[in-house]
């Protein structure tokens, strides 16, 4: 059964409007977060509690991901480099991919799935059980009390995790190089040290900051705008994770392009 042409276009139009609404809502929330930061009146207890929770929860998964990701890069780059006898470049090839792209992106995706989704679920549950209204009835601004500490905590946690993840990934790359490609530790180390510049490392960190902000705000947005009960919470988490993935890819492109 083929849908009439008009129906398809109307469908696309409706989706476009829906997307625009979400994007608009996220931008508004970002503005509110920024306004709440100037002057900074952050609930220190909430900030600390969230930082602790988010960092702790993600370390195992980030370490695991980073190990495999680093190993993967070497598996892809290694044989190619070996064919040309340029084993010294193996470290460089894996290294720049990890520091500039693979590390920040994969870690951000994992973070979004682990911490971002969890955060959305928490905020969504709080909204559904009227705890958010309860805050407003106590004349406490939910954005200032709940959202801002979480945004800051997520951005900080992601940057820290990216640094750790980068190191673990490079280690994983060296490990796989040794075990599967017979490339020595010192060759890899020199490959990293001689060819990678501090700027490459920083490039990844800028991205982590941007990704962290995107993940944090979209995660909070879909949490507090949830509608419906248990089903709504699931849908909110889904939407948050998808939005984060798209933002990561978009931001990655713009940052790579703009900062070289």
């Amino acid at each position, binding site marked *: 059964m083929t849908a009439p042409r008009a129906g398809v276009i109307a469908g696309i139009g409706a989706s476009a409007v829906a997307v625009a609404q979400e994007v608009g809502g996220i931008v508004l929330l970002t503005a509110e977060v920024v306004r709440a930061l100037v002057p900074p009146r952050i609930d220190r207890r909430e900030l600390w509690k969230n930082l602790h929770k988010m960092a702790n929860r993600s370390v195992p*998964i980030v370490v*695991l*991901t980073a190990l*495999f*990701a680093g*190993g*993967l890069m070497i*598996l*892809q780059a290694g*044989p*190619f480099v*070996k*064919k040309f006898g340029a084993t010294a470049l193996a470290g460089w090839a894996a290294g*720049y*991919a990890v520091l*500039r*792209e693979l590390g920040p*992106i*994969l870690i951000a*995706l*994992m973070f*979004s*799935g*682990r911490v971002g*989704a*969890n955060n*959305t*679920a*928490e905020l*969504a*549950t709080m909204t*559904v*059980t009227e705890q958010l209204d309860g805050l407003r009835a106590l004349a406490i601004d939910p954005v200032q009390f709940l959202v801002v500490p979480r945004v800051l905590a997520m951005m900080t946690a992601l940057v820290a995790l990216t640094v750790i993840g980068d190191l673990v990934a490079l280690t994983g790359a060296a490990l*796989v190089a040794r075990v*599967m*490609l017979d490339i020595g530790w010192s060759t890899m180390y020199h490959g990293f040290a001689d060819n990678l510049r501090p700027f490459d490392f920083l490039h990844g960190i800028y991205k982590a900051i941007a990704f962290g902000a995107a993940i944090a705000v979209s995660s909070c947005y879909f949490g507090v705008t949830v509608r419906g*009960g*248990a*089903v*709504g*919470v*699931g*849908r909110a*988490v*889904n939407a948050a*994770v*998808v939005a*984060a*993935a*798209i933002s990561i*890819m*978009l931001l*990655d*492109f713009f940052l*790579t*392009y703009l900062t*070289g």
Partner: protein
Amino acid sequence: MDAASPSVARRAAGWFQHRVETAGAAVLATGATARELWAIWLATCAGVARRASRRHVQGRPRGEIVRQLYWIGNRSLVFIAVTLGFIGMVMAYEACLQLSRVTGDYSQVGGQLLKLDVSDFAPTLTALMLATRVGAGIAAEIGSMKVTEQIDALRMSGVLPIDYLIVPRLLASLVMTLVLSVVGGVVMYGAGGLTAKFSFAVNPGVFFDASQVHGRHVVLMVLKAVAYGAAIPVVAGFCGLRARGSSEGVGWATTAAVIGGSLAVIVLDFVISAIALVILGGDL
């Protein structure tokens, strides 16, 4: 001070013991989870076999698989195209950038990039994106059903939840992951070519070069897509079926599905690539 040290040492030992206990418990829990997951996987395969041997499955409206195909495939198309398009542009950009620092010779970039896209990046990145979108969706759906006791209701009417819920999604996912990988790969490569042209003046004729892609790369792509396509719905369904409580349980299930699916994709990618490397003797 001497009286203090044995209690300090005892406390330190106690802390250490606690850490080991926690780690040990975590390992055991992971083992138990892995065993359960494996059981679900086997049950799903059995369900697929059951379905193949019967013309009409009881209690199931015809066309469930088609609906899942649509839901997983069509609804993810734009998402995949957008994300893989951007990442394709970034990869081409980074590759050309690094080359500009070293040799300045762009003749090989397109060919090597296509080889990598086909054998690894297209299926893997597509699957990672699908793990978030599809994995979360499946876990949310099944999880909500679980906490509202609809799964129990299904069992009461004599229908196996795995046959009813997971098998159609698995079959649809197997097909769609491969299809979307191809589409994603095309978009990725094409966007990469555009970036190379506009940022580094690489001639498209030189960039779009299929000479480096061999049969084994296509085989790798299909293998990976099928593996990912199987892993994501099973992990997601598993997490959904384990949801407990109310909205909190659904949120947890969705989170676990995204993480589990993504991790499964990365680990499978590594394993398949490593095995391929060993078999092909170091010439991927």
